[in-house]
């Protein structure tokens, strides 16, 4: 038996979470360091996965398979393709920065009971989410994936509801009410999506008799499994609904601004940059992989919804007065791009969408974490409370600008490559959609630059005049993220090499060929 690398990659943060939670109340700092070490160890393991993965090899590699719940036809089956490898890398890369950025976010208040251990809980929950997200990128058994998809809601829910942003307007009580509203909204939206998916999962079992992605695909290929058209469509809709809530796609997006607004900045990054990627990843792997015909059938409607997301999210971002909600709406716009790229059914579109997932994660993390540092200095999330920050804190302002420029996909920074690929891939098949989507880029420039102008330039306000610049810990968080953004912007090849073969497999799942002569995506 070979070394179960994938299991270990997920098990390390899971065990780390338990250990972190068990640290005594007084040894708060030890818990933080433990969490950081565990997340770094996971990053090393993810790097090993990346190195061991052979782009030209089998579709699913490093596979593991064990019997689990025989009665339900469920196996503990893991395997990664290029898309999974890329997203595991993203997750493992971001968590150490999230931990570092949230270093003081969960320090207990003086008034709180001595037995209440928020710090340990906070970092343990983050690691628990990491473990579940990584395992969900590895699962090739639909049921196993479903369990993780649902179970990760619980730690996320506690992270949102239990550890709110301390910068808020109004009373503590009011803020607590808003926070628990956001947490409940997050949970109910996602749980409802998940339960609808449960109906579809049960339906899939009735039709197929097992949950293994590879076995089902094989049975479909050699004609043993024949799904009626209507059945396939219903099942597809059940799965897609859950993923569209998670991703989130208009009109199921309304939980995201609440959740990201009320959560602390690192948790907001965890939501949008890491957890939401499970939704888009699952569209690629499960919607297209299990229900190719139904996916093609639904494509026009989904493209329209994605377009609405792109434009609507961007428009609302322009109108936001709250920095974190602005980033949330910008994310909704970007998720529109990702979903459009997936369902354009071209190899550029899907490669672009996968790269987009990674790049959006990194760029949003950079922007949001710097925004979090900014907010923690002034104690307010409102844009109107800032002005002239760049004079007092030039490094903070500069990094904020780079994060913002990445968000608007400036050439030379990583997101440009992916956004360009998505647009090209979409244009090849749906020219009108491609043209409409470009308005999203124009609006992105608007909301990012206006945000920068209002907060960083102009006359300094009373409260911002003496704002301290980034501290060492904060620089350690921001600098590597910006370095990665630039690196992937000028040299995306290591990533595309891994992603492209996987996309070719997905394209053959849906039996689609590129409309124009095939172009190797972004060499």
């Amino acid at each position, binding site marked *: 038996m070979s070394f179960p690398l994938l299991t270990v990659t997920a098990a390390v943060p899971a065990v780390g979470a338990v250990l972190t939670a068990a640290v005594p109340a007084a040894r708060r700092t030890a818990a933080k360091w433990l969490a950081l070490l565990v997340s770094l160890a996971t990053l090393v393991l993810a790097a090993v996965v990346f190195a061991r993965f052979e782009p030209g090899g089998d579709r699913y590699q490093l596979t593991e398979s064990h*019997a689990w719940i025989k009665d339900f036809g469920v196996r503990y089956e893991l395997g990664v393709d290029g898309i999974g490898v890329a997203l595991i890398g993203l997750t493992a890369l971001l968590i150490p920065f999230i931990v570092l950025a949230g270093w003081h976010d969960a320090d207990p208040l003086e008034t709180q009971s001595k037995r209440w251990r928020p710090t340990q809980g906070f970092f343990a929950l983050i690691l628990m989410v990491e473990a579940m997200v990584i395992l969900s990128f590895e699962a090739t058994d639909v049921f196993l994936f479903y369990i993780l998809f649902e179970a990760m809601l619980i730690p996320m*829910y506690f992270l949102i509801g239990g550890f709110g942003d301390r910068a808020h307007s109004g009373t503590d009580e009011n803020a607590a009410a808003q926070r628990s509203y956001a947490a409940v909204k997050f*949970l109910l939206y996602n749980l409802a999506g998940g*339960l*609808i998916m449960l*109906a579809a999962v049960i339906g899939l079992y009735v039709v197929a008799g097992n949950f293994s992605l590879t076995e089902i695909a094989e049975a479909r290929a050699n004609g043993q499994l024949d799904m009626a058209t209507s059945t396939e469509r219903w099942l597809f809709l059940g799965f897609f609904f859950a993923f569209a809530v998670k991703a989130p796609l208009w009109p199921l997006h309304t939980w995201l601004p609440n959740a990201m607004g009320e959560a602390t900045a690192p948790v907001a990054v965890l939501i949008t940059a890491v957890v939401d990627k499970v939704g888009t990843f699952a569209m690629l792997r499960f919607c297209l992989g299990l229900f190719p015909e139904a996916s093609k059938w639904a494509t026009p409607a989904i493209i329209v919804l994605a377009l609405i997301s792109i434009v609507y999210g961007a428009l609302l971002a322009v109108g936001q007065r709250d920095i974190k909600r602005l980033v949330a709406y910008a994310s909704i716009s970007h998720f529109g791009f990702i979903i459009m790229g997936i369902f354009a059914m071209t190899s550029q579109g899907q490669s672009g969408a996968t790269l987009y997932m990674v790049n959006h994660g990194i760029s949003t993390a950079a922007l949001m974490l710097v925004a979090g540092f900014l907010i923690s200095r002034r104690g307010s999330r409102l844009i109107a409370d800032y002005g002239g920050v760049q004079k007092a804190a030039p490094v903070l302002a500069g990094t904020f600008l780079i994060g913002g420029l990445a968000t608007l996909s400036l050439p030379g920074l990583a997101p440009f490559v992916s956004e360009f690929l998505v647009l090209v891939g979409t244009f090849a098949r749906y020219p009108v959609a491609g043209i409409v989507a470009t308005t999203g880029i124009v609006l992105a420039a608007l909301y990012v630059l206006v945000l920068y102008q209002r907060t960083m330039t102009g006359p300094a306000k009373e409260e911002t005049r003496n704002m301290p610049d980034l501290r060492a810990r904060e620089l350690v968080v921001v600098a590597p993220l910006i370095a990665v953004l630039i690196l992937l912007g000028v040299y995306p090849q290591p990533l595309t090499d891994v992603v492209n073969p996987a996309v070719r497999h997905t394209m053959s799942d849906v039996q689609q060929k590129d409309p124009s002569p095939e172009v190797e995506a972004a060499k």
Partner: protein
Amino acid sequence: MSATAVAPVVHTLWTTAAGPIDKIPAPHIEYTQLSPVLIVVGAAVVSVLVEAFVPRKARHHTQVFLSVLALVAAFAAVVGLAAGGYGSTKAHIAAMGAIAVDGPALFLQGVILLSAVLAVLTFAERRLDPADHGHRVDSFAAEAAAVPGSDQEKAAVKAGFTTTEVFPLTLFAVAGMLVFPAANDLLTLFIALEVFSLPLYLLCAVARRKRLMSQEAAVKYFLLGAFSSAFLLFGIALLYGYAGSVSYADIAQVVSGDVPAVDPALAQTMGNDVLLLIGFAMVLMGLLFKVGAVPFHMWTPDVYQGAPTPVTGFMAAATKVAAFGAMLRFLYVVLPGLTWDWRPVMWGVAIVTMLGGAVVAITQTDIKRLLAYSSIAHAGFILAGVIAATPTGVSSVLFYLAAYSFVTIGAFAVVTLVRDAGGEATHLSKWAGLGRRSPLVAAVFAVFLLAFAGIPLTSGFSGKFAVFKAAADGGAGALVVVGVISSAVAAFFYIRVIVLMFFSEPKADGPTVAVPSGLTSVAITAGVVVTLALGFAPQYFLDLASQASVFVR
């Protein structure tokens, strides 16, 4: 049949009665195979004697010891029988056709006994309330017969009386519950029903605090319960008229169109489908009342709220197990030929039960009432598995019942811990901020709530998946969709409690969490362990349930 043919029958009846005694055959009883029931009944009788003869001081300990010992011994007997093959190859009908010894019966008896052990542990808890007049007190009235607030009651409290009668009552109830899912004729079914119902009515009435509410609950339960028993009995009478027998096998034979010998006295009615349909509907009503399915659920919230909380936990878990067991046997053994007739009715019942329980629970402000409505919704989910009418349906229901009973007992045991000056603080507003003050208790309760909500990696999810899968396999896909929707609704109010516990600021005059003795701790720990074990690794127990899913006919 003419009158001349009837006359000799009457004559022979008279002569038989006057005949020699040795012609009455002695009933053949398989004592070993009935040992679980016999042990519990025997212990119950001894327990009554303990009440009469053991001095008051030693009574509590003696009763607890005796009850736990008897229940554990009975469980060992069940395991022994199952290991001896009585659950599968050697399954047969014992006690002259009255009681079935087969897989489902043994499985459910095991579940009932285990939940009874845990329940008895919570009954015996005497650390939660401060001592009264220097005497430790449990959840039960000092003297149940004393009028609340009277001088007699005060005297009883001062003297340190306790209602140790709850232990023999519980043992009798358990004995009835053991027979209920194993009953193989309608009369045994009825007697078992009464044997477990009557002690439960009494148990509901003996709360130490809020005594009037407790007595009100008992009266409501008794009146409505008596009503449902009457329905059941009338249904039995009609079925007897239809089939000329109360034995399950005989009725099934007549239903399938194979009438053995027409009883001359019943020549007018035998084989009359009107009697069959009305009769089975009435029996089913009696059973649906016991499981608390809509529209026979009205008693549930009041009784759950008023009864002493340990009793509520016991009742919610064990009654449901016993009643669903009886329902399964009735539908699968007596009425397999009638599946097409009962399924549409049960569809309707299952749908309104799932939706009704989940929707009404949203507006509840008392934790015990909330759990009561949630138990109604769960009855609906289990009905979805019953409707499947396949062996996987049976095994999924068995598994669900096992999973559910442990979660329920654990959850109600936690409710007993949260107290203020007036006893248990069951109003939801008082639970605000519990997670900050007692993280461990709140976390444990959260685990139970998540299991109720059916979140993956808890037993609730495995159970829900099993019944929904069975229902979908059995062609009830629409039911699964309704079930999923009501799960989403139900999730809302479970989550609301979690929000209250963890995200609300604790109130200054909020309740305290009593530190329980080992007894309650064991019950709660067992609940958590089983909940997580059935969530992470349910395969062994699913195997057990599917091996146990064949009814003997």
